[in-house]
């Protein structure tokens, strides 16, 4: 390993310019003493570079043994604004790409060091992921030793921390909890927006099962029977660092110093002028007044300009946009309620020099642009406008909104107009807008609201203290039981966002065909199909439509269920029949009755083959035998030649850039494309379905020999465990669990289901998804049967016969939970049918009468005991190592 490059060299290699003094000072402090609890750097001065500091800091410890490292492996950049998540993830994507194929020099050395930390499991130095409602909701670092940057909204991160990951199947909640709750750095941007999360993290330790015990008489639990923590040092619990431009001064706060204030760029940005005037109006005339001010600004300007309009509600944004003069300027609307492909179109335009308004690009534009946005653009977005027109709002919001005006101090002509509805009822910001108006009355208008003076003019923010319930061990225990989610458990969102009147959100997707209750949801919903919408509006919308036009995605993500509108909970995923509307080019639009474009054919490259879709594709009626043939394609009926021909035929159709089609494409065109591509798309279904862990029982993959698979997973799991820094005892247990986890698949019925050739025992095989159910019934594998139970029964027999297994309880739990069951309950089948199964383990022939209907009543006690021994997140980490090793080996097999 070479010498660690300095942070200045690393930063310069990434950005092509030297860091600000504070960035270098922070990096040196982190490497020497760890992270401060708060970083108070004003907006526009590169707070996102804390990610660079975290990566460099992690690399600085690569020469230590894994257990000696103190800086966390996963960096969560968490902020309650989706656009800022996107902006940060663009940066981390770029960083990850640079490190994957680094030029010689500082980047190469940092990449080498990160690979060292990763343990050589995949060789990827850094993964970059984005988690937010309406975007990528299923991504996660490939394994717990993988250095990663995860850019996330607060609910996405915190729900993972609390074993309730929004957007994931309940089978994956424990893995997500481990990746959020242990060995993580949380860079919480705009922390004042997320007070409940700060309090939550503070209380996790005392509520964890390893500290508090579970279901015991008070005072009787003595912690410390097992290892106090799996990982020592600063990695056992999340390290939370608040990044805030508007925080309060404290001893722990890292702030700008004199070196920074003398820096010419910092100086220019802090002294940027923002002359602001005020226009009074009424609530009824608000949208009209705002539109008039924006139009006037465009009309007054001799050259095309960029105008940023901020309003407090999406409905106002739609209203303003509809009134703007579109002959004089291009108009764009961005609220937080757009589906990802649609929002992506807007975002790309916003960040495009010349047509958008990215900071640092002063080039002449050809046409004026008016962007109408809600809070989604307030925080951190690196945009720079000539004019801001804003509805009055709270102090913090106005500080942020003004931060998008003359951001870099390069636009001396910049102006701001605040439009104040004098008769408005207190809304989102309470009475703060009125207070702001009164304070501005005391000034000579227009008044400069530049960053150096804005706080003193507008006064202190009138923050409403969020109502956050007290977290108690009993709440956390209910969250940790993920295999049968506790009915009526405390809602995680109360701890994430507080108990508020504000709207919590749900995710909504639109499909042309609604699966009948209980039928598999096919194809799986792609991340980009979701829009994130306030729950109250969704409930109201759903109540106006028949129950069969919508449904909630089940906890395991495989089907939809009919529920009452009142039972829709925050974080739920709702599928709506596209024909009933509810979405327009502005995003969620409950008043729109126009059919919504179903994005699934483009995003999943999958459509369900039916007689009608085939008829449309081929342009003629099909007879029964043709339908049967085409809807039941599998390895035996489609040769590579046929597959190639089909693929070639439709590849051109699929070249269409799906995001561009989002809200503007003609629906009939989209439907035609989806339907015509059906035969080729059918083959993509295998790829799509594999993402659903809950369906892994179906083992869709290239045929894989069972014992070979177990050996490989054992080896990879142990490598991960050692790279994470676990002790020998746990690393061996993880290895054992991984090499035993699928023993139950040796059951003859399971092998018949997989279609194993005589004499072969498979772990997985490829099968047409349409034949799963039929094949299972034909093989005699009982409905709801879990092969994990059989693995446990064989393992017990092996131990009786002398196979050596250390840490038996832990190994048993990890085997039983390797698909997310066993926390604490493992499903059983209704049909009792013991079947002799034979496997060879370490040279010992093991035979047992395995029975999928035999409940393991010891598992709940084992689960509790291990939670108390390792802590809730510690046990989840051990599970994650085994499960993600399994996923990695399976994925690698597919690539081969």
């Amino acid at each position, binding site marked *: 390993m070479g010498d660690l490059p300095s942070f200045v060299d690393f930063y310069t290699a990434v950005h092509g310019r030297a860091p600000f003094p504070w960035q270098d000072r922070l990096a040196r402090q982190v490497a020497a003493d760890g992270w401060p609890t708060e970083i108070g750097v004003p907006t526009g001065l590169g707070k996102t570079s804390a990610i660079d500091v975290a990566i460099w800091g992690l690399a600085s410890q690569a020469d230590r043994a894994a257990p000696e490292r103190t800086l966390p492996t996963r960096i969560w950049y968490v902020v309650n604004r989706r656009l800022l998540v996107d902006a940060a993830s663009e940066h981390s994507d770029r960083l990850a790409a640079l490190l994957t194929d680094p030029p010689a020099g500082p980047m190469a050395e940092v990449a080498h060091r990160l690979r060292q930390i990763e343990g050589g499991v995949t060789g990827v130095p850094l993964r970059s992921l984005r988690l937010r409602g309406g975007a990528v909701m299923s991504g996660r670092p490939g394994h717990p030793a993988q250095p990663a940057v995860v850019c996330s909204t607060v609910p996405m991160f915190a729900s993972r921390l609390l074993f309730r990951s929004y957007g994931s199947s309940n089978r994956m909640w424990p893995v997500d909890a481990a990746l959020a709750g242990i060995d993580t750095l949380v860079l919480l941007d705009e922390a004042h927006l997320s007070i409940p999360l700060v309090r939550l993290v503070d*209380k996790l330790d*005392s*509520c964890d099962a390893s*500290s*508090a*015990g*579970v*279901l*015991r*008489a*008070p*005072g*009787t*639990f003595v912690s410390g029977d097992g290892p106090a923590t799996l990982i020592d040092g600063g990695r056992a619990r999340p390290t939370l660092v608040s990044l805030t431009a508007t925080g309060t001064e404290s001893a722990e706060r890292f702030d700008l110093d004199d070196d920074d204030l003398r820096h010419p760029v910092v100086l220019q940005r802090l002294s940027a002028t923002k002359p602001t005037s005020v226009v009074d109006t009424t609530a009824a005339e608000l949208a009209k007044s705002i539109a008039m001010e924006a139009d006037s600004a465009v009309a007054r300007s001799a050259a095309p300009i960029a105008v940023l309009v901020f309003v407090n509600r999406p409905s106002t944004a739609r209203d303003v946009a509809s009134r703007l003069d579109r002959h004089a300027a291009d108009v764009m609307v961005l609220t937080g309620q757009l589906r990802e492909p649609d929002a992506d179109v807007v975002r790309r335009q916003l960040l495009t020099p010349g047509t958008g308004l990215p900071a640092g690009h002063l080039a002449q534009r050809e046409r004026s642009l008016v962007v109408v946005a809600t809070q989604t653009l307030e925080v951190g977005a690196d945009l720079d406008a000539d004019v801001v027109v804003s509805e009055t709002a709270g102090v913090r919001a106005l500080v942020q909104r003004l931060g998008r005006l003359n951001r870099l101090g390069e636009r001396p002509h910049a102006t701001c107009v605040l439009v104040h509805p004098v008769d408005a009822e207190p809304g989102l910001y309470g009475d703060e807008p009125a207070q702001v108006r009164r304070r501005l009355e005391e000034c000579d208008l227009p008044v400069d609201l530049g960053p150096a003076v804005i706080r003193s003019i507008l006064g202190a923010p009138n923050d409403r203290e969020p*109502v956050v*319930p*007290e977290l*108690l*061990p*009993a*709440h956390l225990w*209910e969250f940790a*039981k993920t295999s*049968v*989610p*506790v*009915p*009526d*458990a*405390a*809602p995680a*969102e*109360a701890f994430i966002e*507080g*108990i*508020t*009147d504000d709207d919590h959100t749900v995710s909504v997707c639109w499909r042309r065909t609604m699966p009948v209750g209980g039928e598999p949801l096919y194809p799986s919903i792609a991340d980009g199909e979701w829009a994130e919408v306030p729950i109250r509006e969704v409930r109201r919308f759903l109540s106006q439509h028949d129950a069969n036009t919508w449904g909630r995605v089940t906890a395991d993500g495989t089907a939809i269920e009919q529920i009452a509108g009142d039972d829709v*909970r925050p974080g739920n995923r709702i599928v709506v029949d596209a024909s009933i509307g509810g979405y327009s080019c502005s995003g969620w639009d409950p008043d729109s009755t126009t059919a919504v474009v179903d994005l699934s054919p483009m995003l999943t490259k999958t459509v369900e083959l039916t007689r009608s879709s085939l008829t449309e594709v081929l342009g003629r009626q099909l007879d029964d035998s043709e339908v049967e043939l085409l809807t039941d394609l599998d390895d035996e009926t489609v040769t590579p030649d046929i597959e190639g021909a089909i693929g070639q035929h439709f590849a051109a159709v699929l070249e269409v850039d799906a995001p561009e089609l989002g809200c503007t494409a003609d629906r009939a065109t989209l439907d035609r494309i989806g339907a015509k591509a059906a035969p080729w798309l059918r083959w993509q279904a295998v790829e799509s379905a594999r993402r659903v862990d809950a369906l892994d029982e179906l083992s869709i993959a290239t045929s894989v020999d069972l014992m070979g698979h177990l050996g490989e997973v054992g080896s990879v799991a142990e490598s991960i465990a050692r790279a994470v820094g676990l002790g020998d005892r746990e690393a061996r247990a993880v290895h054992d669990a991984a090499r035993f986890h699928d023993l139950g698949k040796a059951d003859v019925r399971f092998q018949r289901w997989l279609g194993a050739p005589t004499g072969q025992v498979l772990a997985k095989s490829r099968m047409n998804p349409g034949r799963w159910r039929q094949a299972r019934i034909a093989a005699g594998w009982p409905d709801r049967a879990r092969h994990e139970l059989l693995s446990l029964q064989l393992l017990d027999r092996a131990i009786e016969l002398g196979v050596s297994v250390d840490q038996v309880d832990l190994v048993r739990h990890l085997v039983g939970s390797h698909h997310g069951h066993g926390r*604490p*309950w493992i499903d*059983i089948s209704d049909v009792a049918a013991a079947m002799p199964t034979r496997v060879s383990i370490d040279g010992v022939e093991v035979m047992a009468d395995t029975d999928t209907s035999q*409940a393991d*009543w*010891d*598992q*709940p*006690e084992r*689960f*509790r*005991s291990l939670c108390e021994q390792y802590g809730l997140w510690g046990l989840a980490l051990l599970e994650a190592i085994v499960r993600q090793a399994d996923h990695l080996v399976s994925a690698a097999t597919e690539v081969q």
Partner: protein
Amino acid sequence: MKSEYVAPGLTGSWLNGWLAAIGITVLVPEIRLRWSDDDEPCAVFDSADLIDRLVAALPTIEDLHLLAIANVNPLSSHAFPRNPTLEAYCDRCRVARERSDFSLSSTITDFTGPDSDRLEHSPFDPSAPKGITIHERLVSCLEAIDDPTTMVAASLAGRARRQQLNGLGFDYRRILAPTVPRANVYVDPIVELLAFYGMALIPVRGDMRRTRARGWTKSSMKRGAFTWPVWMPWIGTAGIDALLDLYWSGGTTGMHVAYSVVPYQQRSTMDSTRGFASERLS
């Protein structure tokens, strides 16, 4: 064959008896519990020396005074009356976290509406005359136990002498004829004390619109608002906890009978009596 202790005094149909049987597994964590398959199932424990082990595990007065719900607790500077302040509640939560104490989460919650600074109680922590707290009721029960070994054996055998106490405040058996003065209610202090520890599995929280105790589906005064199963396999506290999740999610694995509450119907708005009898569901 396991050595067993059959407790005919703790029947599955009697809510307090059911809670008390679970409470035994909380106090003696190694104990496993199942229910007999009689028409009137009763608790069966996997320990022939249950009485000795249980008596050894019973709380002392000092233990009760250290509970997070204690009116006065040496670990907290805040008093904790029947209707405590939010500040007192938060401080007692700190105590609960430090001492792995379920008493708070099973009796009272701050999961109320955003504009409410009220705290709400579990249906298993009903109000009592003169604002007597559940902690005081527990202390009274414990103080009434003068010969633990004899009294525990009698309670489990179903031949305990009931004493003039309020108890937890929801045992229907203490409700007497309307002509009897309300103060003259009688409970079995052993069963009441054990039932309190069974409440460890019944936390109260809310859905941000209303308070919800685990297993309760609606207002505690509605028939069938709380249902509970009895089961066949030997299971300890964690197994019972898992089985209850399964049951309240619609599962039936391992269970053979279920019951639901039949609440005492108050005779007037002035009548604050609470009591939960039961009816068999299957």
